[in-house]
């Protein structure tokens, strides 16, 4: 063997070994590409806030909830279809939990819903643990024509064994079944029956010489001799048998399941909105810049307090990342660490804004999350605007929400 052939052969063997070895390394896909989603989509579509994951560890068959609110941003980007047909989903890696329930404004939403721009909705998702592991559990809204809009995620551990999982459901006919394996034997049975009939038909033909002699016969004009009267009788028996089995099995099925209904589908409209306390603070964004080296966004805001109590700016929330001024507000909800900049908000003058007062301040939201969550990529988006929620608190702890939406200018030096 020439050296060249030897090298080629060994290279091929090495390639096969590498490919085979690669099959044994299949790491679990833990997250959902949330950081890859265009920053402007996360900042200017659905604003998730007041999120609460009820548990961080849950046993198989136990339940947990993810609840909170979302604001459908009034300045919805033109490049994304409006959420006229949307579906409240949950961002988890497949059915590691089952979705035991999901509600918007108290209404069960197993179907798609129509959402209104500028409105806030309260939601809750009830999850029942199914598959053990550490899973990133996100809020998520699918928007037709816009794609999935994923919200903040938190790691939740499921303990136990999937073999113990049960999913009991009582039907309207009074039968309690385990949906996890309901009717599975029936599926296997009917597929086995039809495979057996099909294999019998195939065997009837392939047990005899096939390609070469038959091709010779067809080529020499003896094609008709290849199908005998007996073959035709067997064929007719198969066809009639097939029709009889189909008809009989359909009849017996209708007797066994006299009550069946069609699949349910449809769009839910008029979802109940959540009325936030009316904002008495008005905010105008004079300018906003993102300083790339410093991983910080700076805004010049002119704030006017039209209410009757003094307020302070305590939080800026964008794309689920929360920048807090700890002097005003501290998080006590156990929000995911990577999305929480507890000291990330700096206001040039954050003394109480008195009723009737107007003040212009420099606000800086800085944290590694800008880079980690690739929000800095906003400067590469087709519509370089930022948006977010500003939360103000008064001395009694009353909170009000103001949205901001403005162009963003990057600075590279």
């Amino acid at each position, binding site marked *: 063997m020439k050296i060249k052939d030897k090298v080629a052969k060994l290279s091929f063997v090495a390639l096969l070994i590498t490919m085979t070895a690669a099959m044994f390394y299949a790491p679990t896909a833990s997250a959902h590409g949330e950081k890859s989603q265009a920053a402007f989509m996360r900042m200017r579509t659905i604003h998730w806030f007041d999120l609460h994951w009820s548990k961080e560890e849950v046993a198989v068959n136990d339940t947990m909830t993810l609840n909170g609110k979302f604001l459908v941003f009034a300045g919805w980007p033109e490049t994304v279809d409006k959420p006229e047909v949307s579906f409240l989903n949950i961002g988890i890696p497949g059915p590691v*939990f*089952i979705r035991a329930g999901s509600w918007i404004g108290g209404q069960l939403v*197993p179907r798609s819903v129509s959402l209104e721009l500028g409105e806030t909705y309260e939601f809750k998702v009830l999850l029942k643990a199914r598959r053990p592991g550490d899973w990133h559990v996100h809020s998520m809204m699918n928007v037709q024509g816009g794609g999935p809009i994923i919200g903040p995620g938190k790691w939740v551990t499921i303990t136990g064994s999937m073999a113990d999982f049960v999913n009991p459901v009582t039907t309207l*006919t009074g039968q309690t079944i385990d949906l996890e394996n309901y009717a599975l034997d029936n*599926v296997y049975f009917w597929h086995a029956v039809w495979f057996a009939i*099909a294999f019998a038909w195939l065997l009837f033909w392939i047990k005899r*010489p096939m390609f070469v002699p038959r091709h010779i016969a067809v080529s020499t004009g003896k094609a008709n001799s290849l199908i005998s009267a007996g073959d035709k009788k067997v*064929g007719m028996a198969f*066809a009639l048998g097939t029709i009889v089995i189909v008809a009989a099995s359909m009849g017996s099925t209708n007797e066994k399941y006299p009550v069946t209904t*069609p699949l349910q589908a449809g769009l839910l409209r008029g979802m109940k909105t959540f009325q936030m306390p009316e904002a008495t603070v008005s905010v105008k964004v004079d300018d906003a810049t993102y300083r790339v080296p410093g991983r910080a966004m700076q805004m010049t805001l002119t704030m006017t307090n039209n209410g009757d109590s003094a307020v302070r700016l305590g939080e800026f929330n964008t794309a689920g990342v929360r920048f807090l001024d700890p002097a005003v507000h501290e998080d006590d909800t156990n929000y995911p660490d990577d999305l929480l900049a507890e000291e990330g908000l700096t206001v040039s003058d954050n003394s109480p804004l008195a009723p009737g007062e107007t003040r212009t301040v420099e606000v800086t939201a800085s944290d590694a999350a800008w880079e980690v969550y690739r929000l800095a990529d906003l400067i590469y988006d087709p519509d370089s605007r930022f948006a977010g929620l500003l939360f103000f608190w008064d001395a009694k702890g009353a909170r009000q929400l103001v949205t901001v939406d403005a162009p963003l200018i990057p600075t590279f030096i």
Partner: protein
Amino acid sequence: MSASQSAVRSRAEAVQVSRTFDWMILFTLFTAVLGGYHIHYMLTGGDWDFWTDWKDRRLWVTVAPIVSITFPAAVQACLWWRYRLPVGATISVVALMIGEWINRYLNFWGWTYFPVNICFPSNLLPGAIVLDVILMLGNSMTLTAVVGGLAYGLLFYPGNWPVIAPLHVPVEYNGMMMTLADLQGYHYVRTGTPEYIRMVEKGTLRTFGKDVAPVSAFFSGFVSIIIYFLWHFFGRWFAKTDFIADDNL
């Protein structure tokens, strides 16, 4: 051995070689059809075949036969007109369904843990067997297309009803009525398959009340006739020997 000498020395040896050749061709045909047909059906039938909450009485009934009669028609054209073997449709559908079961069991269940009772494949075998028998009895592409194509569409829903009926039993869930199949789709989370892309129960067949499945099946059968013709011609074209120069034969 020179090129003019036979590769075999006796009739018995010739028969043995011929049978070996049969199995090789059959294996190759089976795996090639399994791959090609499977990809075709997943791309065109896709979610209608993947999930029980897509298997409705209108669009699933309409779409599945139309997009699945393709390879059976083409393989029939080759196996019947070249070899008088009336197994083209059955062998195609058996290959497809074996491929689907491997996919559903190993991928849908084995990797992503969807229960098999939500993601089992549709049963296409009754229509395939009848399609083969009609071609054998009639020895006519036109008859097979018209009678067989129609039968293929008509047999689809009743052929699957024993499997899906238990999943169409209604359930009351948190104040809403849905079928067990709907509930499966809701419970077993699919982040990439939101509810609104589910194309079920859409259309204008409202004057037929609850009996839309037979109407959908007839429509599917009619379109299957046209698709059968088209793909039968594809099969005939691909089964030509014109691609090989005479002096190579």
